[in-house]
């Protein structure tokens, strides 16, 4: 298993390299640039712009610029933000914990709700509960996350008020009330709506998946054997069937990670959550290259690492899987 892990890690190097080249080309080949606004400004002379370009190294051939960027990247330096004049690694470093808080909390809520719903639906298929859940999951999968987020803001911030104080029911901007920074209860309070917006679609999707995976497993021979042995239905379902039904979920989750980060980007934008998605969105509006490149590279790395972990976890949980 150690050799397998090592090989997988080595395999990520060419993938990350390809991604970095493609991204660099994509971001830099685009005409117009961070200095577009400066060029239109009549108060800034042509000489000044050329001086800035020279200073930022924007005039060097692309391969030279790429080499310089990659060299920096490998030593942990992702350059400075053009807009904020701050090291990109520092800016991203501040944002990563916030994004991971949001994604992690949504993930926790998703599994907490999706697993029981999936199991109950599979144990009593075509029951009223199952039909209700089927409808709810169809709705949940079709609601765009940005509309849901907006709807939650309208309902819980604009329309409904706290009957005692007259304040909005839930906060909708940022991670903390002013003056409450570092108070985790306050952060939790701010998490409610963003997490709700981000989780609904995932709850729908995973409970659906678990339902069908569980129903497949319930037709297996070993389930029949366990029942024939006289084990109670409860034990058969939870001990024998669930363990096997839940395994494919791990692979699915790993495959879905890019979409989870994409969803987080929308939620962060809508709720002004100071995470990487929000940072990326702001940077894209200002064509802040170093920040764009840094965020995508970090996200891609995170996704690849999680994929490897998922594969390793799968092998650890399922003794039938053999690494070669």
């Amino acid at each position, binding site marked *: 298993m150690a050799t397998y892990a090592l090989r997988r890690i080595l395999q990520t190097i060419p993938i990350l390299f390809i991604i970095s080249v493609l991204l660099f080309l994509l971001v830099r080949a685009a005409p117009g640039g961070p200095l577009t606004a400066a060029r239109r400004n009549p108060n800034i002379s042509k000489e000044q712009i050329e001086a800035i370009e020279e200073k930022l190294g924007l005039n060097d051939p692309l391969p030279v610029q790429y080499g310089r960027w990659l060299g920096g990247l490998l030593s942990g330096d992702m350059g400075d933000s053009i807009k904020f004049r701050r090291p990109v690694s520092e800016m991203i470093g501040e944002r990563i914990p916030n994004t991971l808080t949001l994604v992690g909390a949504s993930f926790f809520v998703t599994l907490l709700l999706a697993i029981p719903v999936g199991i109950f639906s599979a144990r009593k298929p075509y029951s009223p509960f199952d039909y209700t859940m089927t409808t709810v999951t169809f709705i949940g999968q079709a609601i765009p996350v940005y*509309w849901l987020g907006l709807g939650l803001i309208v309902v819980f911030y604009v329309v409904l008020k706290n009957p005692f104080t007259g304040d909005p029911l839930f906060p909708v901007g940022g991670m903390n009330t002013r003056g409450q920074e570092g108070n985790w209860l306050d952060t939790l309070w701010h998490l409610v709506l963003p997490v709700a917006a981000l989780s609904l679609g995932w709850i729908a999707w995973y409970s659906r998946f678990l339902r069908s995976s569980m129903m497949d497993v319930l037709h297996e021979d070993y389930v029949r054997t366990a029942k024939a042995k006289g084990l109670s239905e409860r034990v058969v379902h939870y001990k024998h069937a669930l363990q096997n039904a839940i395994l494919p979920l791990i692979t699915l989750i790993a495959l879905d990670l*890019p979409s989870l980060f994409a969803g987080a980007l929308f939620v962060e934008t809508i709720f002004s959550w100071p995470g990487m998605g929000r940072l990326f969105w702001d940077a894209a509006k200002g064509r802040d290259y170093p920040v764009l490149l840094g965020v995508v590279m970090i996200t891609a790395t995170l996704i690849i690492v999680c994929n490897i972990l998922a594969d390793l976890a799968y092998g650890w949980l399922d003794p039938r899987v053999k690494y070669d």
Partner: protein
Amino acid sequence: MIEPLKPKEQTMASLILRRFFKHRLAGVAIAVMLVLIASSLLADLNPYSPTAQNPSNKLRDPNAAHWMGTDELGRDVLSRIIHGGRVSLAVGLFSTLLSISLGVAVGALSGFFGGWIDSILMRVTDAFLTFPSIFVLIILGAFLREQQLFILQNSIFVVIVIIAALSWMWPARLVRGLFLVLREKEFVSASKALGGSSFRLIVRHILPNCAGPILVSGTLQMASAIITESGLSYLGFGVQPPTPTWGSILSTAQNQIFTAPWLGFFPGAMIFITVMAINYIGDGLRDAFDPYVIHTE
């Protein structure tokens, strides 16, 4: 003389159609889609222009003259929604056709030939799958926003291409899997023994057997393409104004959240209804093509 028993003749298509319409919600969904398509085709018959501004008539609640009210510039929201639907449906349909074509080609080559072709194509597919595509879409969108070159003037076309370029991996994997199974079947060996070329085996014998799953995955792709396009336009990096799309209408509605909270309802609801309808059509197709589904009547 006794008449010989004649089997009731039934073509494959009519069988599939009949099974499809047994799924009642899929039938409703088809009706909904037909209404949406008809309204976007006939969008120009609408008495209001989607871009005509009327500052003296802004932010009106839905009323008899303006069924969905007017926005912050006094434009008729219903008209904008209908014209926006034209864009959203076109982007959904054409990006799906493009991504399915590309995916089927990659999957078919990979699954049929195997070996190094398969290795290379699947590594590329894997790399694309780990790509957080929304980030790339936004970068491309940012590029698009400032772009003045004539070919990129048409932002709808570019949005179609980039959505397809970042979503062909799912049909590719699906088709590859189907090909791996089907290429071992007797009817394929038979055709091969009769001297059928690889092209003939792929196109005439294997591909038609993949039609069901491909159609179903097409519906999923179309639903997600519509959500992606709207999301991109919502963030400001998709189809550019003044062309209205559901996403950009939603985005401007967000600024009026305190003065006119209902404004965001209609564009989002349209996305939701469309995606719901497409998903139900997909569900119906799945049943219609799956020989193992037993219909309880």
